[in-house]
């Protein structure tokens, strides 16, 4: 098996498949990370992804325009983020339950709207792979990273963007301040509410992109429960990445490459019970997290609603 794996071809295929699989996690986990950095835990990722997957698919199906599909998918995610922000920031509700409520709402609405509008599985011409000139001809790296569709590139580009915004801009400083010590940030004139709304809505939009990618970038169709629990894994990957874009990237890639590897192991007919193959990414993610050295703590104000002390 090892010999087979070391053949360049096999490895490239596995890595390329891992990159495709990592994309939805990357979008959703980066978005969730931004929200959590501002102090809001949003467990509604999975439901948001489903609803956006549907709206993006439907608009693409009806209009034939992929761009419009993406736009509507992102807006749907933003709207779900807005609901979460109203409930958890303005109403200061318990964030864990709010997120589960949002998830149920998204799960239900996606099924209902699908039933009302299409009612049967249909397909669209989704995003086609777009080779990046020059880069796609690079050995190994070209095939692994540069022969995907535009949404995949976008997901990976968003990693450094998130890093720059969070750690190199005044806005990022404010976000982190609100997540660590909202009282202090408030005293310094930062609008805790405003920042949290912004971050939760952006987080929702990113979940929306994740769902959009599933329906018009990867599967090119919409089916009920299209995420099959991906949103929950994306939340887990934020903890894996310890609230850092590069960590989230590492987690998403690790999880997805191992997943691609287990698929390949099965396809090659290597005799282990398939359940153990399917478990591989779950087990390895736990193991990798346990032995990661960094000891970053979660944002101090995470999941704590902020209430300005009445003077």
């Amino acid at each position: 098996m090892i010999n087979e794996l070391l053949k360049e071809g096999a490895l490239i295929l596995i890595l390329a498949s891992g990159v495709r699989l990592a994309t939805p996690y990357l979008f959703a986990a980066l978005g969730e990370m931004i929200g959590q950095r501002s102090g809001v835990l949003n467990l509604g990722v999975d439901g948001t992804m489903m609803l956006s997957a549907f709206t993006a698919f439907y608009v693409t199906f009806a209009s034939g325009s992929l761009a419009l599909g993406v736009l509507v998918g992102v807006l749907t995610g933003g709207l779900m983020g807005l609901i979460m922000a109203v409930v958890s920031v303005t109403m200061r509700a318990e964030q864990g339950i709010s997120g589960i409520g949002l998830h149920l709402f998204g799960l239900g609405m996606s099924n209902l709207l699908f039933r009302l509008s299409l009612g049967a599985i249909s397909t669209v011409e989704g995003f086609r792979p777009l080779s990046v000139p020059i880069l796609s001809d690079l050995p190994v790296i070209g095939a692994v990273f540069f022969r995907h569709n535009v949404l995949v590139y976008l997901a990976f580009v968003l990693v450094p963007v998130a890093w720059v915004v969070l750690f190199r801009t005044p806005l990022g400083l404010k976000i982190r301040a609100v997540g660590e010590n909202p009282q202090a940030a408030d005293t310094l004139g930062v609008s805790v509410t405003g920042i949290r709304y912004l971050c939760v809505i952006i987080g929702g939009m990113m979940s929306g992109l994740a769902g959009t990618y599933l329906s018009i970038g990867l599967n090119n169709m919409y089916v009920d429960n299209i995420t099959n629990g991906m949103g929950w894994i994306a939340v887990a990957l934020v903890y894996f990445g310890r609230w850092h874009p590069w960590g989230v990237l590492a987690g998403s890639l690790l999880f997805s490459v191992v997943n691609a590897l287990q698929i390949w192991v099965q396809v090659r007919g290597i005799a282990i019970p398939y359940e153990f193959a399917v478990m591989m990414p779950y087990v390895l993610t736990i193991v990798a997290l346990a032995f990661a050295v960094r000891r970053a703590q979660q944002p101090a104000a995470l999941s704590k609603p902020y209430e300005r002390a009445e003077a």
Partner: protein
Amino acid sequence: MKLSPSRWRDTVVGILIPIGAVAGALLAGVLILVLAGVNPVKAYGPLLIGPFANLYGIAQTITKATPLLLVGLGICIGFRGGVINIGGEGQIVAGALFTTWVGLQLRSLPGIVLIPLLLLTGFIGGALWGAVPGILKARLNASEILSTIMMNLIAAQGVSFLLRGPMIDPAEIAYGTGFPQSEALTEWAWLPRVIPRTTVHLGAIIALVMAVLVYVFLWRTTIGYRVRAVGYSKDASRYAGINVARYAVLAMLLSGGLAGLAGAVEVMGIHHRLLDGVSAGYGFTGIVAGLFGKLHPIGVIPASFLFGALLVGADKMQRAVGVSPGIVYALQGLVVLFVVSSDLWVRRRSARRVEGGGEELVND
């Protein structure tokens, strides 16, 4: 405990506000129903009255509430101890697996011995499955949110493996149908039905007893006090000489154990064997029940009953008007969002009364 008039008023308001929130959610739900072309009056009848209309409705609600209560109690201990246990699904499966496996080995024991033994086995199964993330968190600072989510998925695959191989009912192989389920447990191991001809089984009473026990544990024992102290402030607890890591593991262990017990009573009271998907989402819904109950063991009792009623009523609504299953989830989501938002007004009232908030610490 004597209640002053102002406290009475708070209690009444504390009940009225969530009810108002449910009404608000259903009002918002009218939009969805109209969109789906359903007459809201026809839909809401079964939703609201169905779960209480007759003995079977109530029985269905109690059946649903039983695992929710047990998982919700586990959530109380976990969250109070500062660990966020999202691993209920996996722990239910582990408890169900342990119970079934041991139950199939000990067929000849009489019920009076077998039933307590199997309940304990289920508890241990869930506790062990919960202990893994607990230890990883305590020793290696690995987030329990991540590890519990992953452990859920691992448990599902593990049981799937056992049920198609080592534990499959030999009859399924003999007849070539191959459905992944274990052999049935001996009738000695079945929990007696509390209400005849319904699915309400002894597990409901066990769950109520556990609620009292968890209350006593958390508020009347030193260990329970320390669990809460660790959850309230790790630093202060450490300063007070409490072994923070040990209590975090303990909280996770007990939390998992209660979910495992839920798995055990589901097997012994309902299925009488192990099936794929035995956790049925209770591990997640139980979190909502626990949090709705304000993480108070006694509060979780009505919370799980009402949430059970919502689930039962929603299914009845789907059958009565033939709506898409999505409406059921969408309405549940709305109810959760509205109720959790309405909490603001409840808290404002009690905050005005408590002033300073000292009482909250002792008695919340």
